[in-house]
């Protein structure tokens, strides 16, 4: 018997409990500090005091809250009316002190991460692990060779304590706290996330990884990441997350700011698989200076609504930017994803590649902005967005905004919308693949230009998630 879509979708999260040890109600009692529900200046003050932050950060948080309260909810993109801001925990801290090694971790947390295989993965090739348990990074280790090269890889709270000079110089400069309503919210209540500094000329050859998840009902997760790649330096940062199923809506609103200095290169890879009740509203923006390269690789599966448009400002001559994104929308899901590139300097170049898949009534869209400022002569850009719609109930939208204020440019835009052909399926099935296997193969092939850019374990997981999504969709 084929499973129904509901069974499949629920099935995806249902085994997280046994597999990853998520949603353990006993854990919730052990939290060291848990804010009450709802948002106020008192709460912001409590968070800042609790973290023992410098005064400028406390002020920044208060100012951000004012911006958040002042701004109306966006009316474009997706339906945000279901978010109940008064019914969210804005801050939970699971342990008082950062653990310095695996052995120092509290047993229940350690057990969870054992189930996720973190130490094994680290042995294999991770250069460092930042594991965000609840609102705060509790386990963070940097391999010795990185430290010796002067690379800083800390959770954001530790970054603020240990490298206040750098944080103060760059924090909130790429995404100001009045940028948009959700960036303002994050700026007011942020907790956790990563802080990375790569000194001039240092190439971090192995990807730096962090795992995120949401594990308390109604808990917002507001991580904040700041990455500074100095001249001629290189880093690849990878984050992935899985989340359990909840009975009520949950909000994830992150802010990621990246600065890539001359001739530096940064790649930021995200695979997000939020449970189907999460609002995933993330602001990601990078600036790239002369001859620098910035690459966003962004995979969005799961969530109720995702609104995410990784942005790159090409500020220096010959800077290059790439955005690769995949969105997969199943039943009850709306993925509004895309990318944004602004060419400010001459001879800058960019590529935006977007692949979206919608099925079982899901809605996936590409929303992109390509802007070329006056004076960005010989800027070159290519935008490709392809949509695959798997059934009649699903929907795909494309909103490719292009604004060109310079004449000497080379801009290309291609968009396709396709369906899985009966002939393709028959061809694969005539070789022994079931209909679900055949569909999954076509979909995996469709997103291959992006999965091939992922670290191997993420590519494998991505394909496995696609297979899970395709099972039961027969007929």
């Amino acid at each position: 018997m084929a499973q129904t879509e509901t069974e499949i979708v629920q099935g995806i999260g249902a085994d997280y409990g046994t597999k990853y040890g998520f949603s353990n109600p006993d854990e919730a009692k052990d939290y060291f500090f848990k804010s009450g529900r709802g948002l106020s200046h008192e709460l912001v003050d409590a968070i800042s005091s609790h973290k023992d932050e410098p005064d400028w950060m406390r002020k920044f948080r208060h100012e951000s809250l004012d911006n958040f309260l002042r701004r109306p909810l966006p009316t474009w993109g997706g339906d945000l009316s279901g978010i109940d801001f008064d019914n969210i925990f804005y801050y939970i801290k699971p342990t008082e002190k950062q653990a310095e090694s695996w052995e120092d971790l509290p047993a229940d947390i350690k057990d969870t991460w054992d189930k996720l295989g973190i130490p094994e993965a680290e042995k294999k090739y991770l250069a460092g692990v930042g594991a965000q348990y609840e609102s705060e990074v509790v386990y963070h280790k940097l391999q010795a060779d990185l430290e010796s090269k002067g690379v800083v890889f800390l959770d954001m709270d530790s970054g603020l304590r240990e490298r206040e000079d750098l944080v103060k110089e760059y924090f909130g400069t790429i995404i100001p706290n009045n940028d948009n309503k959700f960036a303002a919210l994050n700026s007011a209540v942020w907790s956790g996330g990563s802080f990375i500094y790569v000194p001039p000329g240092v190439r971090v050859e192995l990807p730096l990884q962090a795992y995120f998840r949401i594990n308390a009902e109604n808990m917002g997760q507001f991580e904040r990441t700041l990455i500074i790649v100095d001249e001629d330096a290189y880093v690849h940062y990878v984050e992935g997350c899985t989340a359990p199923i909840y009975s009520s809506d949950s909000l994830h609103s992150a802010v990621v700011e990246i600065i890539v200095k001359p001739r530096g290169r940064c790649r930021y890879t995200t695979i997000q698989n939020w449970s189907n009740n999460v609002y995933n509203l993330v602001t990601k923006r990078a600036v790239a200076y002369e001859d620098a390269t910035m690459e966003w690789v962004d995979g969005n599966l799961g969530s109720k609504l995702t609104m995410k448009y990784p942005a790159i400002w090409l500020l220096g001559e010959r800077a290059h930017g790439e955005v690769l994104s995949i969105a997969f929308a199943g039943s009850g899901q709306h993925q509004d994803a895309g990318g944004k590139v602004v060419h400010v300097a001459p001879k800058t170049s960019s590529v935006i590649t977007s692949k979206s898949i919608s099925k079982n009534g899901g809605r996936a869209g590409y929303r992109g902005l390509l802007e070329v400022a006056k004076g960005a002569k010989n800027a070159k850009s290519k935008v490709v967005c392809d949509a695959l719609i798997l059934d009649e109930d699903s929907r795909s939208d494309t909103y490719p905004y292009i604004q060109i204020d310079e004449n000497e440019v080379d801009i290309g835009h291609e968009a396709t919308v396709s369906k899985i052909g009966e002939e393709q399926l028959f061809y694969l099935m005539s070789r022994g693949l079931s209909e679900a296997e055949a569909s999954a193969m076509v979909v995996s092939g469709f997103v291959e230009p992006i999965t091939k850019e992922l670290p191997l374990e993420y590519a494998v997981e991505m394909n496995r998630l696609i297979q899970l999504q395709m099972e039961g969709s027969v007929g």
Partner: protein
Amino acid sequence: MDAATISPMALLELKDLRVALEDGTEIVKGVDLRVDTNEVHAIMGPNGSGKSTLAYAIAGHPAYEITGGRILFDGEDVTEAGADERAQAGLFLAFQYPHAIPGVTVTNFLRTAINSVRKAHNDGKDDPIPVKEFRTALFAEMDRLKVSRELASRYLNDGFSGGEKKRVEILQMAMLRPRIAVLDETDSGLDIDALKVVAGGVKELVGPGMGALVITHYQRILNYIEPDFVHVFVGGRIVEEGGPELALELERSGYSKWEPPAKEAA
């Protein structure tokens, strides 16, 4: 005693098979055919006679409706079975126009297909082919069929030349080891050297493990795969049957003696 009445069941049997398009037009109008291992059958017919429809119906294409008769495979009635079940049972169709699957490499596709078949033969439990065994077999078959090894990491049929597609069809057959292979116009679009390689690849597999049903318009491919039986297929029916000599006769005289006179334009 009539030999036919006492011979055991053939591996593939079509009994009075009738096939219609989705709009109801009947294309195959009652076909009886028995194909066994160690046999090569040729179905020869002019364009538009319904040869490809017959091939698709045997393989289980959902767009072709079986309106009458039965298909038996290894004694089982597979008339209603899906294309995947038929393939898992050991039926293979080499396509006239193989489809491209962008983003899926030949290697990945073949391994998935082999594992699907193995899973079906293992009570639905995974039984993946060992990686080394797979690679050894793949490269041996590629070399034998003169398929460039570089094609293994290319996307299936994506940007392949006509000849490459046909060779990769035969490569798939060689890797999947079916018991009955249906070859739909495999000779079309092949130059003589490619034809020899492809025909040689089929011939080598025909034996106690496999029988072949070669569907073709022209006699040319039959110079390299000599058929044991030739069936002339016109207007959705088998109109004459014989041995290899029938193919040569068709080459000389064509199909006109069976074809109805052309209708006047309305």
